[in-house]
């Protein structure tokens, strides 16, 4: 099976899952008590007004027609109209998305930079002090609720560093980049970095701990294999033995685990955004739950679900690329 064929198969599976995600969220509407008509009409509106509104919203159609309309709208990237504000849900969610992506990416990158070397060192110095320290760190990291960690970091920074911003987001990464290149003004970047630093650390801690654990145990397993001895025997520098051979083979199975664990990262982003008032879709979701704006809630769920599926397809593609057996067998 070629890489292309593998990806096509995987994408078809992904589309089925996305269809399921969409269907689940469609039926969520019927579980909820909130009535879109009351939400969108003035409280003193007469029954004719309400009836017209229901007609406009398509609520009087049979359910399969409503479902078909819903899917058609989604295919045109229309997530509906916010029940509370009457604005386009797609645009509202899209406006919030970059903040979450920035946060998740920053957390992932910080995690990888810390966790992979830590796991390698820990495995290389097994049963030495640095190994125990790394193991303790990863145990703590996977056991700490990140909203609490965020609060504690805020206190700690306030006491140790002094007043730096511990909430919100002034400029986006995109704006900061524009400032840097068009106006040669690095301040926007500094502002972006200082705001994202604590949330990214908070969100990244669980992931860092998990990745350290996985890297360590994977490296230990891999280091016991004969090819490592054979690779050393041919005189390859130890750095290459460790990183090109052992670490690479360690990461191949870890990648798929991490793909699944991305759910944890997104879930973590929701609560981290809440702690740091980060204007992403996570804190947006919590707001909308409070407002009971079910159109927006559905929209956010779809965006998160679809995003998760797409990321996992990408992860599988990486796995297939790194592991020759998947493609050739």
């Amino acid at each position: 099976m070629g890489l292309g064929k593998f990806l096509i198969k995987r994408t078809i599976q992904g589309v089925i899952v996305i269809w399921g995600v969409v269907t689940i969220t469609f039926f969520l509407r019927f579980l909820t008590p909130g009535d879109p008509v009351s939400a969108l009409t003035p409280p003193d509106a007469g029954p004719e007004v309400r009836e017209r509104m229901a007609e406009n919203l398509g609520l009087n159609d049979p359910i399969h027609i409503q479902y078909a309309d819903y899917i058609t709208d989604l295919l045109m990237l229309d997530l509906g109209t916010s029940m509370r504000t009457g604005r386009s849900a797609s645009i509202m969610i899209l406006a919030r998305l970059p903040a979450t992506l920035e946060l998740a990416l920053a957390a992932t990158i910080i995690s990888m930079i810390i966790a992979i070397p830590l796991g390698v060192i820990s495995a290389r110095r097994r049963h030495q002090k640095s190994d125990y320290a790394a193991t303790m760190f990863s145990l703590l990291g996977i056991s700490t609720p990140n909203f609490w960690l965020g609060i504690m970091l805020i206190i700690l920074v306030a006491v140790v560093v002094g007043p730096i911003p511990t909430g919100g987001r002034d400029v986006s990464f995109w704006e900061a980049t524009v400032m840097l290149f068009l106006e040669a003004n690095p301040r926007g970047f500094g502002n972006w970095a200082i705001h994202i630093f604590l949330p990214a650390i908070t969100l990244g801690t669980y992931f860092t701990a998990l990745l350290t654990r996985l890297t360590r145990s994977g490296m230990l397993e891999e280091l016991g294999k004969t090819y490592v001895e054979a690779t050393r025997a041919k005189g390859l520098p130890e750095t290459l033995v460790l990183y090109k051979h052992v670490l690479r083979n360690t990461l191949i199975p870890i990648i798929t685990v991490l793909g699944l664990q991305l759910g944890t990262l997104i879930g973590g982003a929701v609560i981290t955004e809440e702690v740091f008032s980060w204007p992403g879709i996570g804190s947006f979701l919590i707001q909308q739950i409070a407002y009971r704006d079910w159109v927006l809630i559905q929209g956010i769920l779809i965006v998160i679900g679809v995003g998760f599926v797409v990321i996992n397809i990408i992860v599988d593609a990486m796995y297939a690329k790194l592991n020759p057996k998947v493609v050739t067998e």
Partner: protein
Amino acid sequence: MISKRLKQSLRSELRTSLMAKIGLVLILLILIVAMFAPFLAPHHPTETRVSDDPEVDKTDLPPIGMGYETSETRLVDGEMQTVETTIEPDHSFILGTNTLGQDILSRLMYGARVSVLVGVLGALLATAIGVPYGLTAGYFGDRIDDSLMRGADMMLAFPSLVLAIALVGVFRDTDFHTQQIPDPFVLAARHDTLGSFVPRGEHVAAMPASITFPVTVTLVVALVNWVWFARVARGEAMAIRQEEYVKAAKSVGASNATIIRQHVLPNSLTPVIVLATIQVAAIILLESALSYLGFSETTLTWGYDIQQGQSAAATYWWIAFMPGMAIVIAVISINLLGDWLRDALDPSIEGEGGV
């Protein structure tokens, strides 16, 4: 189900691993505290002590050993003065008090009850849903497997916290349940007029007569986490159905239900047990996140206390710090227990961990 060899490997793993010992001791400690909270808690967990009278007011007291100096500007003898005051801890409030003057330690002890109940019942419920689902998929394979597991994948597409928030949002407006569970010790103490059967009878009798158990939250955490059990059970069932004894049972005409019950289920329990242990930790974290966000209808939980302490955290750090430590300790000890079981039983298990 638990063979002699298994017991042996559990024991030898426990002997060699310090971490396993620590985990086990901590878990027992937490269970004892949760169970006997009315006896052990020094104060009523929800009794407030707010007053204008500084003698009665017990708000924001620091933990023992954490007394501190502060200066405040206030009216003294008709003019504004900056007064240095020392805030001394009160020895009957070991971990200090919160903004309402409630004893933090007592609240932690009662909070342990909710965490333990939701964690254990949630994990059991998730097992009860996930294991039969996964066994069916894995045992029958092919189309049944495909369609069942594709359904499970759809659940996985939603991060557990996101799904939990959405479900709580749905249930909150329709039928959100909490259940008052009467505390047998307190009831016994209250009916025990002589105070001779229950130790510290008077103290216990003054404690809350029941605790609030968040039924909906427990259902929700089970609903978002059963998929992991389904995945593990499916993997086991797929391996076991290839075994000779399963083929033999089939050849003598045993029904599929019988084979699953008698052969597949018992042989797939080990990894399920390990997963269930780890899931208790994951569910405790999930529950604390929900209570932190205010999506649990109970207020005597660790997550809620953290949320309460957050706004004052810059000055009265302990109010948010203490319940967080309680969560960390509980989750660490369960994870240690899980590591111990996994090392002793050694299956390969995946599972979504924390929040």
